[in-house]
């Protein structure tokens, strides 16, 4: 590991001032991804600015919305009574991720900016366009059985590993940020850049912007929500596919639906095509299946991950049918 200096941030302003102008500085939150990447030599910061002492560790009601501080640990957020009551999909997504130990350390903000677990990205001896722009993408011909089927490019087929962010995408969450220009917020789905020809550029925000929290708008009356994740073992593994959904059915018709897909793209994938296909139509399994297939029309599976296409389709149908059937 490269040697680095360490500083504890006294305020959000001070933290941003230390990191924003220094491309070799990183914020340290729970460290569950960053410290590992430093051990692997993938991240080589010269300065770590520890933000865990900042007062960003509360869940508060803000009108009808819920505001989650960036330092709220995954386990605390999953157990929070208001989250469990109002946003079951969020609690379920968090509990489907990692282990008890990791959830105790990992933060809300850190989860959103964690890096892909693509084996070429995490192996500093291998080419990788995300880690070393222009070096190539061995995953396209190599080990890609758990990589992207939607929105990928010839430059990168990595997936975003978060469960939390998939639920947040379906909840229309907004990300609170601070950079040198001050605080601002953007929709979570706009926080991530499409891959294109620069997979190294993952976020739309300025380098050194600090995630300070997440805002959850209220769900419409009658909304039900759920998260379902498929893994290669029963627990403690990243998704090979996941679905977060919010559904409102009135008189047998879909009056509101939001679908997030995980482990299929470089960022949490909001299934807008499927949502448009469903809105105003019947809440039937046939309609759910047709909508999922419409979304997956644009899928570009590789040699070893084509299984994800029917898997995601069936998962969408199962989750929506489950929500429609709940009474």
């Amino acid at each position, binding site marked *: 590991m490269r040697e680095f200096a*360490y500083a504890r941030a006294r305020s959000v302003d001070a933290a941003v001032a230390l990191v924003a102008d220094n491309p070799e500085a990183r914020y340290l939150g729970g460290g*569950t991804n960053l*410290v*590992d990447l430093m051990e692997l030599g993938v991240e080589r910061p010269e300065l770590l600015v*520890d933000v865990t002492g900042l007062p960003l560790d509360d869940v508060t009601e803000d009108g009808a919305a819920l505001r989650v501080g960036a330092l709220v640990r995954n386990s605390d957020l999953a*157990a929070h009574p208001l989250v469990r009551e109002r946003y079951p999909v969020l609690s379920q997504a968090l509990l489907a991720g990692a282990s008890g*130990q*990791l959830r105790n*350390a990992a933060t809300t903000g850190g989860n959103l900016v964690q890096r892909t677990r693509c084996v070429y990205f995490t192996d500093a001896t291998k080419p990788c366009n995300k880690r070393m722009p222009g070096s190539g993408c061995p995953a396209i011909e190599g080990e890609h059985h758990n990589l992207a089927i939607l929105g990928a490019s010839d430059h990168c087929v990595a997936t975003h590993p978060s469960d939390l962010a998939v639920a947040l995408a379906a909840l229309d969450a907004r990300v609170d940020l601070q950079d040198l220009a001050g605080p601002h917020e953007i929709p979570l789905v706009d926080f991530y850049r499409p891959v294109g020809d620069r997979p190294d550029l993952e976020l739309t925000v300025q380098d050194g912007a600090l995630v300070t929290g997440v805002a959850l708008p209220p769900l419409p009356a009658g909304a039900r929500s759920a998260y379902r994740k498929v893994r290669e073992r029963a*627990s403690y593994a990243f998704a090979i596919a996941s679905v977060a959904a919010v559904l409102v059915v009135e008189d047998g018709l879909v009056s509101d639906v939001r679908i997030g897909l995980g482990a299929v793209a470089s960022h949490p994938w909001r299934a807008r095509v499927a949502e448009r296909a469903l809105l105003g139509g019947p809440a039937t399994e046939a309609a759910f299946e047709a909508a999922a297939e419409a979304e997956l029309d644009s899928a570009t599976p590789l040699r070893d991950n084509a299984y994800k296409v029917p898997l995601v389709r069936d998962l969408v149908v199962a989750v929506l049918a489950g929500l429609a059937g709940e009474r």
Partner: protein
Amino acid sequence: MAGPELASTVRLMLNGAPVELVVDNRTTLLDLLRDRLDLTGTKKGCDHGQCGACTVLLDGRRVNSCLQLAVAVAGREVTTVEGLADDEPHPMQAAFVAHDAFQCGYCTPGQICSAIGMLDELAASWPSAVSTGPVRLDDAEIRERMAGNICRCGAYPHIVAAIREVAGGD
């Protein structure tokens, strides 16, 4: 030796006693315990947060010590497997012995620290992927909540039995 800005003075409470030492900022809590403080009960398995052998209690909560930088836990309270027993073994330690809940024993300190942390989480009514409502601590529930601790000998049935006994479950 690292220059002064690349090292830090760390003070923390370790198994109830204050500790102060200068560490290279790169030092993980796991390496601090094992290499600097001779507390080798905490084990290094994968060193990447994937096996749970290094589990300790940080301010009473279970964490992977391999992913905690020592400099970042300054001012906090760390409990390792060496700090669990008073005059008698901790009830979880005794239950692991009584149920023969190990073969090689390498994962055991992490399993025990994790199980103690897990039962505190249960007492706080934290949900799990198995149960989001009232919890019945059956085998499936214990296995899900202990999923962060891998045992390559496969001693899981006895580990589950030991934890169930301490929890007073059925």
